[in-house]
């Protein structure tokens, strides 16, 4: 009995020690980051302009409250994500630190940075971040998802004509009535994912033969609204929601599968001036309270967080998410697709 008691005691002590170690595994890095953040005192945050200064300050307030800090957040709304990403590449090449500590840009832009090793990775999983949301060799985490599908003018396209699969866009009846937006990475993701390169390029060539009108996404929404284009091959939900808010007759062809999902990622840049606040902020960006703020100010939420609009939308659908090993391929094929469609 004594032996059994001793063994049980040893087991319990061992278990407690293990739990304590595991707990320290979460707490220790965060404590270190908090201590470092206190010294740094400021964060330069680059994010989509749709977040706005109010959204950015709401994030700062939530962050300071959560960690008991008084960090000043300098918000840098994106003017042009592509050019600003290139700017980071150039600054790094000339040995200069980046202007921002963290960047919230699309997964494709982070892919460009990751391919050039321009992130400062961190073990976000050890800080309790869901592994599904961590990407690019623990350099970034996913903040929110967009969704892209064929989009049509619900006043002008009869229910029976609404595309039900991607191939329906190739029906000759749509010739001269289609549109395609410059986000050619939408098809690039299909090529790197479920469709493969051959099928995607074949599809895009046939789509190009339909002579779609080519524009940027926001402009396409207007062309759809006025009826100049009846169906856009893809459009993001952000444009859709914005148009719907004004009462415009736009709708997703929701039966079409798979659904493409570009994501907003956040990551700390290599040689960031304030890396501790940066990493702590990235961890914060994975929290549920950020989802509320992000949804309120940008209209987007994460498909990885149960209960969010994005999570609900993705249920039961085949959704194409881009992974880090696809970054180079998506970049290459998207350029090819751009040429086939006639964007460049």
């Amino acid at each position: 009995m004594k032996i059994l008691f001793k063994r049980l005691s040893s087991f319990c002590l061992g278990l407690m020690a293990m739990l304590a170690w595991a707990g320290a595994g979460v707490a220790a890095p965060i404590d270190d980051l908090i201590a470092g953040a206190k010294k740094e005192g400021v964060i330069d945050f680059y994010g989509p302009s749709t977040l706005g200064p109010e959204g950015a300050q709401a994030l700062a307030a939530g962050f300071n409250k959560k960690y008991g800090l008084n960090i000043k957040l300098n918000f840098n709304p994106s003017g042009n994500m592509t050019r600003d990403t290139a700017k980071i590449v150039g600054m790094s090449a000339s040995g200069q630190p980046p202007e921002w500590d963290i960047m919230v840009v699309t997964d494709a832009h982070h892919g460009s940075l990751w391919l050039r090793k321009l992130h400062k990775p961190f073990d976000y999983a050890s800080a309790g971040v869901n592994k599904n949301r961590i990407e690019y060799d623990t350099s970034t985490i996913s903040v929110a998802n967009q969704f892209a599908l064929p989009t049509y003018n619900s006043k002008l396209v009869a229910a029976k004509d609404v595309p039900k699969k991607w191939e329906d866009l190739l029906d000759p009846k749509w010739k001269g009535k289609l549109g395609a937006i410059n986000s050619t990475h939408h098809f690039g993701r299909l090529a790197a994912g479920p469709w493969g390169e051959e099928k995607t390029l074949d599809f895009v060539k046939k789509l190009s033969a339909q002579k779609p009108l080519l524009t940027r996404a926001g402009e396409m929404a207007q062309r759809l609204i006025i009826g100049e284009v009846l169906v856009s091959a893809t459009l993001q939900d952000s444009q859709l929601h914005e148009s719907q808010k004004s009462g415009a007759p736009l709708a997703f062809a929701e039966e079409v599968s798979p659904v493409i999902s570009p994501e907003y990622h956040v990551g700390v840049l290599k040689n960031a001036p304030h890396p501790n606040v940066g990493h702590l902020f990235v961890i914060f960006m994975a929290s549920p309270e950020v989802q509320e703020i992000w949804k309120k100010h940008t209209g987007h939420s994460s498909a990885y967080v149960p209960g969010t609009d994005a999570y609900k939308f993705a249920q039961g659908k085949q959704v194409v998410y881009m992974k880090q090993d696809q970054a180079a391929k998506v970049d290459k094929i998207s350029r090819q697709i751009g040429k086939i469609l006639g964007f460049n």
Partner: protein
Amino acid sequence: MKVESHSEAVGVWEGIGRRMPQKVSLFAGGLAGFLSILIGLPVVMVVLMSLRTGFPGEDVPFTLENYAYVYFTPQTYEILLNTFFFAVSSVFITLVIAVPLVWILMRTDIPFKKTIYVLLTIGILIPVFLRTIAWILLLSPRIGLLNKWLQELFALSNPPLNLYSITGMAFVQGVSFVPAAFFMLAAAYRSMDPSLEEAAYTSGVSKLKTFLKINIPITWPAIAAVMVYLFMTAIAVFEVPAIIGLPARIHVLSSLIFTSTTPSTGLPEYGMAGAYGAIMLVIGLALAFLYVRLVKQGKKYTVITGRGYRPREIALGKWKWAALGFVFLYLAIEVFIPFAVLLWASLLPYLQLPSAEAVSSLTLKHYIELPTHVGPRPFINTLILMVAVPTVTMFLSVLVSWIVIRTQVSFRGFLDTLAFIPHAVPGILMAVGLAYLGLAYRDYFPLYGTVAIIVLAHTINWIAYGTRTTNSVMIQVHRELEEAGRVSGASQPRVLGKIILPLIAAGVLNSWIWIGMLSYREVTMSLTLLTRNNIVISTVVWQFWGSGWIPQVSALGVILILFATIVVGTLRFALSRIGDIGSAS
């Protein structure tokens, strides 16, 4: 104390003046050096980037890879052809409208001249993007109202007009060039000796025949110069190729350079932009050479003189209404229709064609919400441009012209040519070169992302215009006045400040206003240099358009047009003694 300071200052100037002409040569040398750097650097950057791959700031070896790609791609030659046809057609459409217009307004007794001038100036101020929205609603093959009416009227199975073609692009671009062409040709028509016209009328030749056989041949050198000038502008413009050309896969050089530096996917290809830019640079230099030759040739036509005559207006008689109809038709295309469409779009919750349902949904919310969407920054930045660009440009122009026209400095010809070179370098290229400079050498040129870099780009771009204007006004000041000043013991700088400047002030002010307006509406360079901090009104329009905020951008457009009407109307009234805005060109 004040008097003493003033005397000291005068003393300094006198001192400088007495050490002439060595000091003048030294000053001219400094100015030439400064301009060489100012104008040369962006051009050097374009050449440099064309010889590199990678990103600004990356240490990469020189290569001809970009040129190899550009010259061995058949698409390049298609694009060159597109660019050529677009430019030629645009110029053709401009002249078809501008030449009769300038004759009617400068040589005849057509009524409402002042109102027409104001409306022409307002036409310049309507951003081309906004006008293009109107033309899409009218001429789109699918939804264009004009197409629908024509189809119904003539029972046509297909829409007769297609905006999405080179002709469609040229139409919109050509119409938007008319005010500039008008003001450039106005001087030639205003100063034309009427004796030949009168001889023709006395001989019983009709007005139309006189116009075709006398007026056009006499002013041909001026028209040819305008043609070359507009051709150079047409190969560099970006707005119409972006809104009408790109959706229909019609690429021109400017849209290719823009998409190379601002791709939709992946990272910018500055090297490719440089290689395409090099082609544009060669074309620009060749055209500039042609332009200079044409302007020189124009001086041989002695019938165009300002001496000893009073311009008499031709009585239009019964043709007055036809002439008014022509002017009204043009103004409808240029001002009234775009304004009506903008007003309509600005009052809708989302863009719709006219219908009873649309009328019932009219709202003012876009006007009310505009401050939240735009904020004060674009207005402040635009104001900075409108003041800083003409001030710096005219300051440099006066100095250059003073050296070129009023001194005997041996290299004054070089200085004049140097100031003209920016005219040969398309604006988009200048901006790309400056962007590359700012990104690659930010330690030495820390202007990237600031309004100052746009001020610099605009200044370089319009210094050719500025110096042409100051040259022409300074040459009109007779040397006797200057000599009188010199004989009285005044130094050359004092003569410049006290005699020449007051005499040329009107012309300088006129050009100052004109350059300010051009800077206000310029979009290609501002867009190429755009970051979040240096956003201006013209780039807000582009961003709103790209974001699909058509009602919001239309509300902004309506406000801008009304504002411009008030400003231009007031300026015309206040400066009516000085002359027409832009007439110095």
